[in-house]
């Protein structure tokens, strides 16, 4: 068990990436099942039991389809676009704390890819880079519809990132740190479990979740791939697995957005009555075992929260029609940003009056 800490962390990073990919894979399946259920259908049920091998069938289909390069496309950028979208989507999952820590003897393993004290800033930075994937894809296609879709994506992401950041500032004012792990730990106080940020920041959470929908280009904000106006949007010219990577990146983004929301607003790996439970286990099994059990239960808790959010993303997608582009811009600039500023002022006032910490 005398692995250097770096070795354990490398393993954790690999596991985190693997989990992100696996969840994104099965999100495609879940999306189809949820869509079907919301429309009184059954959904995929042919490939394997309950259609569980459907993602595999999709992957085989995408890999065996023809690779198509449009005439006049910039080949290097054309390939680079989907790769960038995929890489940036995956990178953001590295700083998300999926659990507290496990202890084996003297080895302590933090269930987090990398603990950086600027975690939230890193997520924002990487997510902002994600728009390059779309932008490059739209540009390199040499197709005007794709370019328009890419421009829409870029302006949409920039507009909503502002409101998102401002909604987040209110959280940061309370926590005083950018580390996602710290923010999670602050959301639990022994003896009290309802200290999740959603209780203190309901308005901020609504702004954040609306912006998260826009940032991940999900309905009702999927204007960049609006097929009624733009054929297929920024990925009109893409085929086979390059197209698949774009769609896949979207699901990873949904996963990351869900994870960030559950960490920032829903207490991450904290769950009700964890301190009472730990006390009970510690008395019979010892403190270390109690900590490990609570950590594993915390991982389960965080994934339940994440899956609920992923379900919510899909639920909204199959309920709401997409906005018109001017409505989207008006919502972002004239409603969400002023609301976010108001939320900051409100939070500041409440902190000043010692109503919230």
């Amino acid at each position, binding site marked *: 068990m005398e692995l250097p800490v770096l070795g354990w962390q490398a393993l954790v990073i690999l596991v985190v990436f693997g989990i992100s990919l696996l969840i994104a894979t099965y999100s495609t399946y879940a999306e189809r099942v*949820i869509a079907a*259920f*919301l*429309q*009184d*259908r*059954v959904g995929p*049920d042919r490939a394997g039991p309950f259609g569980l091998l459907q993602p595999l069938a999709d992957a085989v289909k995408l890999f065996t389809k023809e690779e198509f390069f449009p005439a006049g496309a910039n080949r290097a950028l054309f390939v680079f676009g989907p790769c960038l979208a995929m890489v940036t989507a995956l990178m953001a999952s590295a700083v998300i704390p999926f659990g507290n820590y496990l202890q084996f003897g003297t080895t302590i393993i933090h269930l987090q890819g990398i603990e950086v004290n600027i975690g939230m800033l890193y997520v924002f930075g990487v997510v902002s880079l994600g728009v390059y994937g779309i932008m490059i894809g739209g540009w390199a296609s040499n197709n005007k519809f794709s370019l328009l879709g890419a421009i829409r994506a870029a302006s949409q992401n920039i507009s909503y990132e502002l409101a998102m950041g401002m909604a987040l500032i209110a959280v940061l004012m309370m926590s005083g740190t950018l580390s996602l792990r710290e923010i999670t730990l602050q959301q639990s106080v022994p003896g009290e479990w309802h200290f999740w940020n959603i209780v203190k920041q309901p308005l901020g959470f*609504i702004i954040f979740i609306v912006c998260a929908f826009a940032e991940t280009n999900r309905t009702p904000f999927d204007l960049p791939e609006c097929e009624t106006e733009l054929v297929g949007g920024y990925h009109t010219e893409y085929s086979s697995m390059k197209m698949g990577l774009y769609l896949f990146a979207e699901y990873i983004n949904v996963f990351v957005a869900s994870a960030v929301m559950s960490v920032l607003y829903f207490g991450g790996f904290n769950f009700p009555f964890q301190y009472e439970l730990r006390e009970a286990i510690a008395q019979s099994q010892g403190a270390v075992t109690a900590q490990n059990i609570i950590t594993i239960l915390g991982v389960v808790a965080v994934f339940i929260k994440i899956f609920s959010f992923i379900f919510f993303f899909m*639920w*909204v997608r*199959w*309920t*709401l029609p997409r906005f018109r582009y001017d409505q989207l811009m008006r919502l972002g600039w004239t409603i969400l940003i002023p609301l976010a500023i108001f939320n900051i002022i409100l939070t500041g006032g409440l902190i000043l009056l010692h109503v919230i910490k």
Partner: protein
Amino acid sequence: MQSLSNRAKKLEKKPMTLAERAYLPAIFQGLSITLRHFFSKKATIRYPEETRPFSPVFRGLHVLKRDEQGRERCTACGLCAVACPAEAITMVAGERKKGEEGLYREEKYAVSYEINMLRCIFCGLCEEACPKAAVYLQADKMAPPRFERDEFIYGKDRLVEPVAPDTRSKRGIQLTPEQAQALNAKLAQPA
């Protein structure tokens, strides 16, 4: 403008209330509607495993019936062909020879009897017209899809009710009831 019928309704566009402008209540209303559908009964029928039951008035593929002694009922009178609005039925009548009494019920019988399923509209008028209760439209069978047009012209080989399963050849060779009985008995014996 003056309304002549007095039925015209005057529409007024009220300003939206705060809840309407906030938009979120409407979103939650929509979400609750879709969530109810999440738990509702699915309309899907898993086709190859499950089939939808036919309607009670469904008329399907024709069959030429035999009588209780296994003889063909059809006497090739041609009333079905006359009654057919789509002119899908053609037949050639023949005279029963000596020794064929077990095969055909009357002295006259149909040497050939063809229905073109591409023309047929499954109206059931042939069934109504038949004085010998020979032609029926089955309520549980459809004319299956085929690749070639001539495969839709159903001859006696495919129309006449089989005497018993397994005694009917695809080439349309008809067995007498005695022959069929003998064959069935032979088949029923353990090998």
